[in-house]
């Protein structure tokens, strides 16, 4: 499992990571400039990564969080979103049918859709999975001049993050964002201001799929129970009707019972 650790205090908001991301993913640069202004959080189908000003001289990075137990993977009905062996959440455009359920499911509001084209796909950060596969750094991490974002193994980064916030308790808030949120994410943040504005929330700790997956496992059971119950009910009622039919009611009923022998 890999992760990206961001130190909010080090980011100067130069947006070089965004440019690197745009260059790496061959995105439309002009549209990306425009989307920075129009999109609420700076993300669009041509901007997978955005730097948002959250306070005076404080900038937060926003991109796909690459959750450990992502809601989008559980939501996608064709299994078009998967987790790579290294932990990146990857989208497969060849499977997508465009239902946009992932956009509804994501608790961070990350997936974007190419609304302007006739053959649209979902767009989001894929943690440069083709680069990290070969032990290269993701484009954004490589571009950062201040080393505000660091890439590495998730457990090691978590230890590093805790070491940093413990060594300077007067500077940092004692919380590593991304450690437990929604079951843990691969984007970790340490900060000296509260990050609730940026989409993080410290309340939920259960992964979103835990809300639905126990229920969906019961589906076949429910279906079979209902079916069996109905067969039983039908049998009882048919028997009762047969008895009453012996008293000589209508031909219609006996005729129908013949038809239901196969059930």
């Amino acid at each position, binding site marked *: 499992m890999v992760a990206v650790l961001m130190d909010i205090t080090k980011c100067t*908001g*130069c*947006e070089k990571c965004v440019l690197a991301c745009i260059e790496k993913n061959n995105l439309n640069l*002009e*549209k990306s*400039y*425009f989307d920075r*202004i*129009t*999109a*609420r959080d700076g993300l669009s189908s041509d901007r997978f990564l955005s730097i948002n*000003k959250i306070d*005076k001289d404080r900038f937060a990075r926003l991109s796909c969080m690459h959750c450990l137990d992502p809601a989008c*993977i*559980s*939501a*996608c*009905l064709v*299994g078009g979103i998967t987790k790579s062996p290294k932990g990146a959440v990857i989208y497969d455009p060849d*499977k*997508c*049918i*465009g239902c*946009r*359920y992932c*956009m*509804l*499911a994501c608790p961070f*509001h990350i*997936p974007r*859709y*190419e*609304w*302007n084209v*006739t*053959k*649209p*796909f979902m767009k989001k950060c894929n943690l440069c999975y083709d680069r990290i596969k070969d032990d290269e750094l993701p484009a954004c991490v490589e571009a950062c001049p201040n080393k505000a974002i660091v890439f590495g193994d998730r457990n090691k980064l978590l230890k590093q993050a805790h070491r940093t916030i413990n060594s300077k308790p007067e500077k940092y808030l004692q919380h590593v964002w991304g450690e437990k949120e929604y079951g843990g994410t691969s984007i970790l943040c340490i900060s000296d201001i509260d990050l609730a504005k940026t989409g993080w*929330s410290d309340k*939920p700790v259960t992964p979103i*799929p835990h*809300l*639905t997956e126990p*229920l*969906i496992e019961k*589906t076949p059971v*429910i*279906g*079979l129970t*209902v*079916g069996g119950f*109905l067969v039983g*009910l*039908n049998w009882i*009622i*048919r028997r009762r009707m047969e008895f009453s039919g012996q008293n000589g009611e209508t031909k219609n009923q006996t005729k129908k019972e013949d*038809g*239901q022998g*196969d*059930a």
Partner: protein
Amino acid sequence: MLNKARTLKDILWFFVFFGLVAGIFRLWFGLGATTNLTDSVPWGLWKVLNMIAGVALSTCGFTIGFLVYVLRVEKFKPLIKPAIFVAFLGYGSSCFALLFDIGLPYRFWHPLFMWNEHSFLFEVFWCVMLYFSVTFIELMPNILEKYKLKKTVGFLHKITIGVVIIGISLSTLHHSSLGSLFLITPYRLFPLWYSSLLPVYFFTSAAGCGIMFLIFVKILYSKLYNPVSVFGEQTNGKVPVVCSLNRNDGNTATKEYGKDMPMLSSLSIVGASLLAIYLILKIYDLFRLNLFNTLLIGTWESWIYILELLLTAVLPLVLVIIKKSRRSPYGLGTATFSASLGLALNRLDVGIIGYFRDAGSAYFPSLTEWALGIGVIAAAALVFLFVAENFSIFDEQWKVYKINKGIFKASFDTINRVWQAALHSGLQRTTIIGVFVLPIAFVLMYPQYKSDKGIYVVPASGLNTIRSILIINANTPGMSTEFPHLKHQETLGKEQSCIECHHISLPDDKSTPCSRCHRKMFEKTLIFNHEMHKGWVAADRQIPGLQPENKTCAICHLPGLPKDINSAVGCMECHKEDIHVANTLNLPKQFLYADSYFYVMHKRCIGCHQERKQGVNKPNLDQCSNCHQSYYTQYETKKELYGSLASD
């Protein structure tokens, strides 16, 4: 009767043609150009109204099947055919509308082969697809028996009960799963609607309202084709005969309605009891989740919630409980219509409206969305009318009506004649409707040009050659006013003043509305230059003396009061003539156009910078920070100065 059906059909054709154009536009131009969907509100009208609500209203297929085939309630036997048919149409039209909603319609078959069994949407897809096939199998005998395929019909009749039971299981699963779809959004859906009981709500409300919808369809059908069966014998056109045949109590005379009314009213009791369960569960959930604060706080969500519950459950329950209204087709019609409407509203709430607060933006479907959504429903209604006229769906004695009433011209022995009978009389009218509607729909719904750069601002036009005065429309099409641009520039700080109005990140590079600064025109704001005004007033009134501006206080401020904003006169007292609204259309066309600021800066500066970047070996020349380095600090100081003014 005949005319009513014709008028209804014409109206339906109107919507169908409109929807046809909408569908073509959707496929041709894509989702973004034709719908109002955004990244914040990804699910819109087609998915929620057509698919989720449409499927929910078509539950009658399995509920009536349960009553008739499993519980053997012979009373409802005449309704089984229409119920299955309504279900078939409902599911068919829903799936058809869904094809337009998904981004890549030609991949609709993907879930057949690509599985993700953790997804509720996957379960919904399979169950809906299987159930659609089940309704088709259930429907086959009715269509086949016309063509005398007795063997097949006999076989299909044999497997009916098995098919029905499979259908009921599938329906139970997918109707609850449609609710479970939204279980995945616990922090996005508004708390009034989010509940772990969502699947139960969806199932009970769909089952109850499905029955109600069937009753509504039956009443509507009877109104059009066979009023006697529901509305009773008619004299003077519409008024049912009043008979005093009430045997139970001789006190009141009751109206005697048609022979189907007792069946419908007892069916409505079944539907209403399901709705009662739904209502009780909803109220229980309010206690369980302690949502009374949210409900009574008076947000518009809470009002919609209350309205929805009233429509779905309370009003139908009351109308069904009252004996008189239950037994009258009008009372029952109101109850069932309200239930159907409430159900649709509920699905819209859970699927769209409940997300507005989280998304931070509201969504209203575009004309194209409405057109296609309603068009598909209208097409389904047309198919329903066609089948109701030509096949024995609602009445066993449909041939009798044919002969007696003379609605149908041809006999229906061969499919060719059925085809002819359906098309022949209506074809001309339909063509005329089409000829009128298609161009209108084309013009109305043709997507506005949206370039990739996203610049579609109405440019300001200059009144004089140096453009010191501009004609601006302030985002109000058709209306415009003269805007002294140069004066504003000078007052606000010469060259550095551009940023005050222009580059403030309004969506779509809209021009800054005047109200951004001038909304506090009547108050003491930064926009009001008190020093200058003293001089102007003095000059205007020609007050003599060495320092005439010191004698002007009483002109604006009321005497005897502290000289503050409260005692000052309004700006409009003097500036009434300065602000006048002109109509752009009357202006001569030779006015020079001024580009929007964003466009100017980004075209001129960035273009050059990008060119130079390649020539001078300076790779960073086109980065934003070259221009925007000081932007944030400037903005911050302004923000502190202006306070709330600049913050929004």
